[in-house]
C-alpha cells in the first residue's frame, strides 16, 4: 500500500514497480485477474492462465480488440491500463 505511494513519489523508478490488473475473459464470460508489471512479458500471463485453466498454452489464443497478442509483448507495449481486458479464445478445429 505505502509502496504504491512511494513509487508515485519517486518518479523514474516508479514505473518499473507499478503493477496493474489485467482481466482475462474466456469464452464462457468468466474473468480471471492478473496483477502484472508494465514490462512483464505477456507469455508469463499466458502460461499462468493456461496452468490455472488446466489447458495447454498452445490451445489458447489471446486477443486485444481483435488482434493477436504476441508472447513477447508487454502491457506497456500494448498500452494496457489498469483493469483493461483481454480475450482468450480456445482452439477450433475442423476437417470434414
Amino acid at each position: 500500500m505505502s509502496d504504491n505511494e512511494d513509487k508515485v513519489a519517486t518518479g523514474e523508478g516508479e514505473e518499473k514497480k507499478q503493477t496493474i490488473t489485467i482481466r482475462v475473459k474466456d469464452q464462457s464470460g468468466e474473468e480471471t485477474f492478473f496483477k502484472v508489471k508494465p514490462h512483464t512479458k505477456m507469455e508469463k500471463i499466458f502460461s499462468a492462465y493456461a496452468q490455472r485453466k488446466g489447458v495447454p498454452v498452445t490451445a489458447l489464443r489471446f486477443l486485444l480488440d481483435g488482434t493477436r497478442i504476441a508472447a513477447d509483448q508487454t502491457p506497456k507495449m500494448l498500452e494496457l491500463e489498469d483493469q483493461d481486458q483481454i480475450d482468450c479464445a480456445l482452439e477450433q478445429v475442423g476437417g470434414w
Partner: protein
Amino acid sequence: MVMVLYHDAQLYDQDLKLFTQNAWLNDAAINFYLTMIYHEMVHGRDDVLLMDPAVVSCMMLQCDDEEDLLDLAHGLQLQFKKMILLPVNDRENFDSQGSHWALLVYHQQTKSYKFYDSSNNHNLQSAREVAQVLDKALGTKSRHIEIECPACPQQRNGVDCGMYVCLIAEWLSIRYATNDQSPVETLENYVSPQKIRHVRKAMPNIVASLITT
C-alpha cells in the same frame, strides 16, 4: 515446443504437423496460411482483411455489447476493408471445438455476402450468424441478410475442409488483387485434391522459407 512467428501469426510444431499428417486443421494453421496469403500474395493491401479464425470466434462469443464490437471493428479497421474473408467454424459454444470449416466473404461495395463451403453448405447457419454480427460491427442497419452460395469445390474426404478454406481464400484474394486477371484457372480447377496434397506436403518448406526471408 517450437514456435514459429510470422508477422503476428503463431504456429507451433504441432500445428504445422497438421498439414503434413493429413489431419484436421486448427485455427492456428488456418491463420498462418491466411497471414501468408495476405503478406506474400496480396502484398499487405490494407483494403483486404483475412480474419484470424480466433478473432471470428471472439467476435461471436465474447463481444457481449456494442462497445466490445466497436472496439474490435476499430482494432481491425473494418470500415476500410473492401473485402473481408472470415473462416467460419461450426463450433457453437465454448464446450466444443468444432468439426467443420467454411469461408464467408463480405464485399463492402455491395454490402453483400458470399459463402464457400466444401461440404454441402454444412456451415451455412453458422455463416448467417457471423454475417449478422459482422453487419453489426460495421454499423450496418438491421436487415435481412442474403448469403449467396457460388459453386464451390467439394471435398471428397473427412479431413480437408480447412485446406479448402485456405486455397479458396488464396484464389479469391489473388483474383481481387489482380482485378480478376489471375489465377486463370476457375476456382474448381485451382482448388483441386492434387493441389491440396501438394500444399500439405510443402508446408514445412514454405514455412521455413517465410521465416528466413
